[in-house]
């Protein structure tokens, strides 16, 4: 779960990490009030979960009030890689002479958190990692023990950070590790950490992602996460408790089990269609869950056709079919063609029960996907 920059910076500031003075604004008026208080130069930064905001025009530096007004107008409401900008962070510009990258993340391969520091900050760190991996110093942390303070110093020195600011950077890194642990983060990244002419060290950006599986013990962060949904359908999925990812195609997909749903998406693509979403309804297929799942895909205006693929294991196919029939009865009309395919235990019995007045039925996954793709093509023609 990604937090917005302003949320992460509030957490940083509370933990004692120096961040620039800033205000959140949702209107041009609020943005102007903010710059009046903060002064110039001021950065106007779109608050959306999109990487490379600057390049995409989502971050501008205003040197006077006219510019501030112009940029706030431009950025608020703009479409940034598919996301509408609802708020901007107005932030005091930092007069920096140097930029660093620091981060804490989980190294999956090692099963251990890793600290990362690079003097090549301010640019796309993924590119640095690819082109010049040696430019990033790394230090693994024993997750059972936690961070030894020397490790933060070691990785900062190893990265070649200037000696006069190294201890300040190490101190920030130590605090970031504490935050990483205390808030069940999956990733914390500051890019850039700015070094000013006066040799102050400031966290100028903040990326903080929280492990969704730990939100149950992070109530404050869960609340922030709630506020950071950017898509109404994703919010709805959150309320229903579905694993859901919205994509840009027109074939809606419902299934059970992450691997099989992913496979269904891949098959839609393989047979020439475009998947509209990933939606995993989990084990079983109770009528209520099926109703909610259908509601999700039917309320996505991009969806022209739906494929519903359930592998009944412990939950028998006939029970699944009953659930689907009950769910279908909840709708006055079936607004988009739905192809259902049941497999596994008692699949045949299930297929026989399905109400084929409302839906189409196919026996194999491949056939169901091909039919749904064809249905979608017919709608768009």
């Amino acid at each position: 779960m990604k937090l917005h920059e302003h949320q992460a910076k509030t957490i940083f500031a509370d933990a004692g990490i120096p961040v620039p003075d800033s205000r959140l604004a949702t209107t041009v008026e609020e943005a102007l009030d903010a710059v009046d208080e903060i002064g110039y130069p001021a950065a106007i930064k779109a608050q959306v979960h999109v990487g490379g905001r600057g390049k995409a025009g989502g971050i501008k530096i205003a040197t006077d009030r006219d510019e501030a007004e112009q940029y706030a107008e431009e950025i608020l409401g703009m479409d940034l890689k598919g996301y509408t900008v609802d708020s901007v962070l107005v932030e005091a510009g930092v007069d920096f002479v140097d930029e660093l990258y620091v981060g804490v993340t989980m190294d999956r391969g090692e099963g251990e958190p890793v600290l990362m520091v690079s003097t090549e900050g301010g640019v796309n760190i993924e590119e640095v990692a690819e082109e010049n991996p040696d430019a990033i110093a790394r230090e693994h942390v024993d997750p059972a023990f936690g961070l030894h303070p020397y490790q933060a110093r070691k990785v900062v020195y190893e990265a070649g950070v200037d000696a006069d600011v190294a201890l300040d950077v190490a101190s920030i890194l130590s605090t970031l590790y504490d935050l990483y642990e205390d808030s069940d983060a999956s990733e914390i990244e500051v890019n850039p950490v700015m070094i000013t002419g006066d040799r102050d060290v400031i966290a100028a950006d903040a990326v903080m992602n929280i492990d969704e599986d730990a939100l149950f013990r992070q109530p404050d962060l869960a609340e922030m996460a709630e506020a950071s949904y950017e898509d109404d359908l994703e919010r709805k999925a959150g309320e229903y408790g579905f694993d859901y990812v919205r994509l840009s195609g027109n074939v809606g997909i419902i299934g059970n089990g992450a691997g099989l749903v992913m496979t269904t998406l891949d098959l839609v693509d393989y047979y020439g269609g475009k998947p509209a979403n990933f939606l995993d309804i989990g084990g079983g297929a109770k009528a209520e869950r099926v109703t909610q799942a259908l509601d999700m895909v039917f309320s996505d205006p991009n969806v022209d056709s739906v494929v519903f693929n359930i592998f009944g294991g412990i939950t028998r196919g006939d029970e699944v079919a009953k659930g689907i029939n009950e769910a279908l009865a909840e709708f006055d009309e079936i607004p988009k063609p739905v192809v259902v395919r049941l497999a596994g235990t008692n699949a045949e019995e299930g297929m026989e029960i399905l109400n084929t007045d409302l839906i189409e039925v196919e026996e194999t996954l491949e056939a169901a996907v091909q039919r749904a793709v064809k249905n979608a093509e017919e709608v768009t023609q």
Partner: protein
Amino acid sequence: MSIFVDDDTRVVVQGITGGEGKFHAGQMIEYGTNVVAGAVPGKGGQEVAGVPVYDTVDEAVEAENADASVIFVPPAFAGDAIFEALDTDLDLAVAITEGIPTQDMAKVNKRLGETDTRLLGPNCPGIITPGEAKLGILPGNIFSDGNVGLVSRSGTLTYQVVDNLTERGIGQTTAIGIGGDPIIGTSFVDALEAFEADDETDAVVMCGEIGGEDEEQAAKFIGEYMDTPVTGFIAGRTAPPGKRMGHAGAIVSGSGTGTAQSKIDALNHAGVPVGDTPEEVADHVEDFL
């Protein structure tokens, strides 16, 4: 022959008094698995699904000679339950629980390296040796005894592939779900190594998915050490970067690592044919046999 579990495996079910634990303990017993005990703190002395419940795994092992555990404990307590299994020196612990915080699993993983216990999962459907034992939630009736080993990160995808094999009359030695979390116990390489050493296993199917580099490592292992033919399937070709596709581990990083393509390329490079559809995977298996 089989790997990791057979009809001698003696199972303790952690969390046997919960809804899932109780139901699946019953299902495992019905399948013929040697379930000998349950372990739930505060519930010692009860009987569930016809087996005695103990307060600790240690007591269950003492009293019933259990050598494997299946864990159906809610996410908040599952990390602790795995520690309990590891500290009791079982041969095998199978963690079914989905949604364990990653940082809890990092701590578990650290301990795992210091013990001899094999951990399967978490967030996995378990393991089945058809006709002998199933530890987990796999639907026993879709599997049949045979000579193909199967290892997968996903439950339902495994069932789909098994279904395709069954239609052609192809059965399994053992099928293993290793789990969809970023940090798991048994890896593809561990399972492949065991299948390679198993005389009965004549071919292996591995179903991977996006995220991490386990499949790439598996490809390397196959290329260097395996004589048994392997075919693969990789889910998540259409997954956008940065989005978690259901499984906590199924995420392509912003830098483009963990993509389906890199895994497919690695497997192909190691001489492993990768199916575009589950049906094609079954075709490859048929070719091998």
